[in-house]
């Protein structure tokens, strides 16, 4: 989903006191700064790519193709964040981060890449733009936090933009999955039927429907969690206002 990684909001509280550095040492911090800078740059490339393609073509349609490769590269690269949590250099839950990243990777590869017919849908632009803006803010937020120099603007943006970007991204994702359904059913993509010697079956079409249904309980929980985080984080800074 397009929300910023929920688990990592813990780092948000630490722009006054660098508590989160209990994990990483100097080397890990340097690595993480490089990682976050690279990711910020990558998503900026995607953002610029989208704008340029729009200006060249003169329309919103089919912009996916102009940023397909960097999107796949940088979104897949986010898998490293699961490793960061597992190793302990980032104090977030492996499960939460894993869930976030895997759902993004799933949409990128198992839906958009795999079902060619949806790539020209406008819903793809909807979630790609939501992801792009979110990730640029999120990765620069981490970068600045690690360097102990977080501008209030970035913190504010991180905890405010999601109010629009999250529903926007979710809408784009759901519409895209919905658009993929008929093609999956027709071609039996990623599906296994009986009989076979491992006595197993899997219906990708049903799986996609269940995925869409799962948004119903999950999206509100994540959204309201972020809203609560927002209250906590932005309220505090009003008191201190050190930066």
């Amino acid at each position, binding site marked *: 989903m397009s929300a910023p990684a929920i688990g990592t909001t813990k780092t948000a509280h630490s722009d006054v006191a660098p508590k989160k550095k209990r994990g990483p040492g100097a080397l890990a911090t340097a690595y993480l700064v490089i990682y976050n800078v690279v990711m910020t740059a990558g998503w900026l490339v995607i953002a610029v790519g989208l704008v340029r393609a729009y200006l060249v073509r003169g329309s919103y349609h089919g912009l996916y193709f102009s940023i397909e490769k960097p999107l796949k590269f940088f979104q897949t690269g986010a898998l490293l964040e699961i490793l960061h949590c597992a190793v302990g250099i980032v104090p977030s839950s492996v499960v939460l981060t894993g869930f976030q990243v895997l759902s993004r990777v799933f949409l990128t590869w198992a839906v958009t890449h795999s079902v060619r017919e949806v790539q020209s849908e406008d819903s793809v632009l909807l979630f790609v733009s939501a992801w792009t803006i979110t990730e640029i803010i999120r990765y620069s937020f981490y970068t600045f936090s690690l360097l102990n120099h977080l501008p209030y603007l970035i913190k504010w943006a991180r905890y405010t933009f999601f109010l629009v970007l999250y529903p926007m991204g979710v809408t784009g994702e759901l519409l895209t999955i919905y658009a993929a359904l008929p093609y999956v059913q027709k071609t039996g993509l990623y599906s296994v039927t*009986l*009989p*076979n*010697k*491992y*006595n*197993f*079956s899997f219906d990708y079409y049903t799986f996609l429907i269940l995925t869409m249904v799962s948004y119903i309980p999950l999206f509100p929980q994540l959204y309201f969690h972020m809203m609560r985080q927002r209250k906590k984080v932005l309220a505090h800074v009003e008191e201190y206002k050190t930066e």
Partner: protein
Amino acid sequence: MDTVVLEGATHKKAGPGSVPGVPAPPVKRPKAKKAKKAVVFFEVEILDAKTKDKLCFLDKVEPNATIGEIKSMFHKSHPQWYAARQSIRLDPKGKSLKDEDVLQHLPVGTTATFYFRDLGAQISWVTVFLTEYGGPLLLYLMFYFRVPFIYAPKYDFTTSKHWVVHLACMCHSFHYLKRLLETLFVHRFSHGTMPLRNIFKNCTYYWGFAAWMAYYINHPLYTPPTIYGEQQVRIALIIFLFCQVGNFSIHIALRNLRPPGSKTRKIPYPTKNPFTWIFLLVSCPNYTYELGSWFGFTLMTQCLPVAFFTAVGFIQMTVWAKGKHRSYLKEFRDYPPLRSPILPFVL
């Protein structure tokens, strides 16, 4: 405000000349044959661990009162918190005290302050086990007999033509029947209860997997083992039965370590039963045998969902075995060093 009483309050022997109800003056000289210790009554205050509100004050608590008895007293003043859902601790963030802990042996003054946390609604282990094992037993049979609305209507109440399917049903049913009987007659539980929400979690796991496996094994389009055919099924059955007997032997051995009604913990050792000789190499052979049983069942049915179930169970049991192994090592200085948690030499 300590009341110093000469004799223990349970022995209501008043000395000559003493007025009943009035505490005798403190006498430190030991009397005739038995040395009488000065008995000091304790006061116990129970605070809420989170809010630090004073929830309960008990006075005239006997020094040899156990935490269990204090919990009963607390329950009287707060009837909604039965003893099983009380966590009493010395420190708001500390570990729970055990029911068997005796008041005077705890590091408290004569006015003891305890912190209380509500563990939430509790359910007995026996209830949970019976429910979580009863489900798979019944669900599997529903698929085996091809009850309507599972498979296409033309297959309703038909039976499979593959003998391995009948064998699998017998093995699966035997396994869960064994578990139910062990719950009722063999196991001796350390804890009486667990949080209520566990029953939903556990039943989803057991019932869900049982239904998933049973669906494929009893499916009209089920394919019996093809790799090594009949030989594969035979070997699988032997492994399964061997491990069932092994698992049962371990359960009996563990039961015999603990006298009825007690919660003692001892190091398990091999007994005369050869199936228990695995204790030489493994801390939790009950899990080892359980893994073996499901491995056998996987081989027997050649069914991917069964393999998944075996894998997930293996991961969970390994986590439990490592935990148990660690507690054994912490509790017993002389714990045999050769043992691994669940797989000999490996894990």
